[in-house]
């Protein structure tokens, strides 16, 4: 699997096919048993998670993984934990508030009081705080209203245009393929289909891997 610079790549697949496991292995939360993961030409699969973040590869978790007892600003400041100076931190805060003005309105609220969409924005914003080169999104559309999903996806596109690389794991296949340049469909932990997202959108085998590979014989 390969993710090109400044592109959006979608990683698709049904429940329990190993999408999140790939992300966790990449960000160092779990060790890969075999194989290798490279980022910027260097092997990273033996590094501890905080060093991987330091190299500019950040995983954004699903919206429920924020620190509920801290305010929105504190959550964002945690995202910029590896930054050295206060100025960088404030610049990045500005940048995130520019992407998501809703967070600026609620910056002093506790994260526990935010809505689902705002939590997702907070998570993505937290990922952007550390000046990453590439972010990996884990199901940014999970359990959100279609309108908010659209809003978030527009922002992901903006993020890419600003020079970041995005790897997106999705259940919402149509939306993800609309957004992405390239797509991988995995099944039982191995890549089943890959190709241009335009092509994948009409590919029968994509449907097949979502339905578990058993084709109903309609006569």
């Amino acid at each position: 699997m390969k993710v090109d610079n400044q592109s959006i790549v979608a990683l698709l697949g049904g429940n329990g096919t190993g999408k999140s496991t790939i992300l966790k292995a990449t960000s160092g939360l779990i060790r890969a048993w075999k194989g290798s993961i490279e980022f910027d030409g260097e092997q990273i699969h033996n590094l501890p998670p905080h060093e991987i973040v330091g190299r500019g590869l950040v995983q954004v978790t699903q919206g429920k993984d924020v620190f509920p007892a801290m305010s929105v600003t504190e959550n964002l400041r945690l995202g910029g934990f590896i930054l050295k100076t206060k100025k960088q931190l404030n610049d990045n805060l500005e940048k995130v508030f520019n992407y998501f003005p809703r967070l600026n309105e609620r910056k002093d609220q506790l994260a526990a009081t935010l809505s689902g969409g705002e939590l997702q924005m907070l998570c993505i914003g937290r990922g952007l705080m550390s000046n990453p080169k590439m972010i990996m999104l884990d199901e940014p559309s999970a359990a959100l209203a279609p309108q908010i999903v659209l809003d978030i996806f527009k922002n992901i596109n903006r993020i890419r245009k600003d020079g970041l690389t995005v790897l997106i794991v999705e259940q919402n296949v149509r939306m993800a393929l609309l957004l992405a340049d390239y797509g991988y469909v995995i099944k039982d932990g191995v890549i089943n289909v890959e190709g241009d997202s335009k092509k994948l959108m009409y590919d029968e085998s994509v449907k097949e891997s979502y339905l578990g590979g058993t084709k109903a014989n309609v006569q």
Partner: protein
Amino acid sequence: MFNKLRIGKKGENIIFSVFVLIYIAWCISSPDMNIESLKSVLTIGLSVGIIYGLVALGISLIYTGLDVVNFSHGEFFMIGAFAGLTMFNVLGDQDWIFNVFPDAYGWIVYVVCLFTAFVSMGLFGVFIERVFLRPLTKKGGGYTVAGMGIIICGFGLSVVLINVAYLIWNPVAKPFPAELGLPMEIGGLFLPITYIWMIVVGLGVAAGLWFFLNKTKMGLGIRAVAFSKDVSNLVGINVPLYISIIFGIACAIAGIGGTLVGPTYQVVVFMGYIILMKAFAAAVVGGFGNLPGAIVGGFTVGIFETASSFYISGSHKDLYAFLLMIVVLMIKPTGFFGTQVKMKA
């Protein structure tokens, strides 16, 4: 069936208030009750309570950071007291300090002792965590089978540390003759100056910890690690390092507690165990894992214990802390400030 027995948060508070009122009525009906005795009970209770609170603070801190209860924490308290005493004896041989500061000699030496206990126990705690607990936390931490291993390791560590201290300092109780000055008169009550030191320094340490956790970047990281290690990893926090820092801070605070107790009582090898148990009771009363709760729980246990031994019966002094813990667990299982109950080993 158990659903019917649940009384809810409001019911808990009402029943607990009834218990407190009955207890206060019992104390008032005692023949010893008067304003003078109440004053001394409150000051002694507060000064003992802040010590329980400091140790409970460490237990709660380790519980939030490592997800386990550290049953060797009382021994860090005891070794902290010995570290302070050793520094005191070293400085006692140096005449030049007395010559340079003839007036402030006593408290300068004592502050140096407190500082020594703080720093040395902090480093010792980091060492213990790195060498003995790290292999176990690596295997999964508090929520897994390894969590049980860490708890048993804590008990073992307690025995080992007591015996090491026994070898170094032998089991004879040692006085800690800090020259802090004459008793002070506050509101018609003559208080040994060490009691005031306990309360002031203890509250100062607690306030310092609060400031550190809430206002500094490292404190932000510690709170993040305490809440979730996975998410902390993903924002780039060096989680193993922060777990060491948490353990070190908890041990350093226990060390200060030991040195604070030293001049009032004596320094003995076996002083850690009962303090650990009472601090545990204080942590439960305040709400396990809640840091302000640990200090409030310490004060509650201290005052309850002193008042009970004064007004009810003095012959079972060590019983009351656990009695209070049992009552709180029966009526209000979350303690004063505990919000959620997590399953931890």
